[in-house]
């Protein structure tokens, strides 16, 4: 095995190595946290769409996202159900309502109302109670996230929704919307009864499940023909539209890009600065490498390897930090989603970032006069 001057030299000055790695780790952590939070928020923006087992969503024309629904006549569903290729279709109401709390405070809730929740496999994480019981009376199932805004609640208690007492008959977890307003699940007719003025005879969405082998595009085209004043989206399109709304309207995407950019900038500056200082301090050694017959390429290899080691070590530390932050974030209801692709992308990014930082040193090395080895 050949002598690994790059690694030995890098680890020789442990403090400098730590500073370099910390710089990379800082950038990596920042990228993971920012992108992870962004993905977490975005997953909330389309979480219900992703969970509901519908292939197509019929919405009111120009509905911007799943939370801000508009009404249209519920009888439209008949035109959908009669189509070949449609296995089943149901009306879904998504509506914001006010809840009076025992403290006297009034809070908001986002109601999801269906005739049959089990049929759509939604909500997915029911931890207490039966969704089927919702049909049996003035009942509701609440998501646990409501505790943060409404205070503690238990199954069997009542809450007043738009002036009517509803019994809590179940709990779910992780059913969230981007708005952070707690989700409530109730029977479709009950939701209409609670807000007759706007919801009587109206729905906000039609969920469509296609028959096996049905051509989604053909069915969609047919629905569009029959409901010309509605929009029809596939599940993926609708989820994307809902996420895009929040990205565009809140500047969340821009904020993420700016933070990621700044994180990378800080990382690149720290790495470039430490590598350059290190190069300057080892200039005589590099001169010696040249004097004993090594070319610029030999020194570029040393610097490149040092940059790569710093990148990989910084990535590992940064990823570890981000991983450790996940439970901390979860405690404050922030979801950090870090998919495998992001790990790969950030690792490659860290290596590219560090090699870019090393370029500045490359330029210096190219100009080293090996005759400096004779100077005292």
């Amino acid at each position, binding site marked *: 095995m*050949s002598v690994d001057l790059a690694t*030995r030299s890098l680890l020789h000055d442990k403090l400098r190595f730590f500073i370099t790695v910390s710089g990379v780790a800082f950038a990596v952590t920042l990228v993971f946290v920012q992108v992870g939070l962004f993905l977490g928020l975005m997953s909330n923006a389309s979480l219900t769409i992703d969970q509901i087992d519908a292939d197509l969503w019929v919405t009111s024309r120009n509905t911007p996202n799943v939370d801000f629904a508009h009404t249209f006549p519920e009888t439209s569903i008949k035109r959908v159900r009669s189509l070949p290729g449609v296995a089943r279709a149901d009306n879904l109401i998504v509506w914001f309502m006010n809840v009076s709390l025992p403290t006297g405070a009034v809070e908001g809730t986002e109601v999801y109302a269906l005739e049959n929740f089990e049929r759509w496999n939604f909500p997915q994480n029911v931890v207490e109670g039966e969704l089927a019981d919702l049909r049996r009376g003035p009942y509701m199932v609440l998501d646990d996230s409501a505790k943060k805004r409404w205070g503690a609640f238990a199954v069997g208690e009542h809450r007043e929704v738009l002036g009517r007492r509803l019994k809590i008959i179940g709990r779910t977890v992780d059913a969230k919307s981007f708005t952070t307003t707690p989700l409530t699940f109730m029977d479709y007719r009950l939701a209409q009864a609670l807000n007759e003025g706007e919801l009587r005879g109206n729905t906000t969405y039609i969920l469509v499940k296609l028959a096996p082998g049905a051509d989604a595009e053909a069915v969609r085209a047919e629905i569009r023909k029959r409901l010309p004043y509605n929009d029809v989206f596939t599940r993926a399109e609708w989820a994307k539209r809902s996420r895009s709304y929040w990205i565009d309207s809140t500047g969340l995407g821009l904020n993420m890009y700016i933070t990621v950019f700044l994180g990378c900038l800080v990382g690149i500056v720290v790495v470039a600065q430490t590598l350059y200082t290190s190069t300057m301090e080892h200039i*005589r050694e590099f001169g010696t490498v040249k004097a*004993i017959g090594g070319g610029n390429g030999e020194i570029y290899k040393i610097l490149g390897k040092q940059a790569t080691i710093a990148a990989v070590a910084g990535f590992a530390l940064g990823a570890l930090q981000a991983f450790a932050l996940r439970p901390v974030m979860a405690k404050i209801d922030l979801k950090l989603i870090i998919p495998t692709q992001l790990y790969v992308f950030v690792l490659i990014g860290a290596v590219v970032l560090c090699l870019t930082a090393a370029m500045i040193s490359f330029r210096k090395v190219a100009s080293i006069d090996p*005759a400096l080895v*004779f100077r005292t």
Partner: protein
Amino acid sequence: MAILHTRSIEKHFQEGREVVPVLKGIDFDVDRGEIVALEGPSGSGKTTFLSILGCILTPTSGEVVIEGTPVHEKRLAEVRRRSLGFVFQQFNLFPSLTALENVEYALNVKGIKNRDARVEAERVIEAVGLGDRQHFLPRELSGGQKQRVAIARALAGSAPILLADEPTANLDTQVGTQVLELFRALAKQENRALVIVTHDPKVRTIADRVVKIQDGALV
């Protein structure tokens, strides 16, 4: 035939608008196994001449011929790898590498790798008497020991020409004498040509020939 030969070497440096001639047409030969001391006062041009002999600097005019082949400007690094070994006044060891690794790394740069490099490095480290210090870092070695490592590094890889720049300048008299005697013995034993640039009169005692340089010319 001389293993190292120079013909009419001239070197000029530009200082502002002025051209300063440092070397003025030097003809110089060294044979295999010969030890030559190159003496001269400060500013006489001896280190510049050594740099040209070592293919680190190129002459303004004239020619350097090593092992019968004129040195081409574009192949300086290759000539340094193949034919030259250096010993510097400041030792110039890699502080993060042990004595043995310093030698081994130089061999790696010369294209000798893996076990061959390790065996050769151990041989020369033993030859300079540092077998028991081979795993020491430079900071754990004395000045004399560092210079021995530098000599081992120069000897490693069978370069036929060894060039030393003030190798005793940073050593005390006793250690300096020991290092010079060791250097002479090894150079003779392995039939290497050795050119030593020095101010140190002790070098005369080990040299086969003393050449003086003054104002850029041999006298």
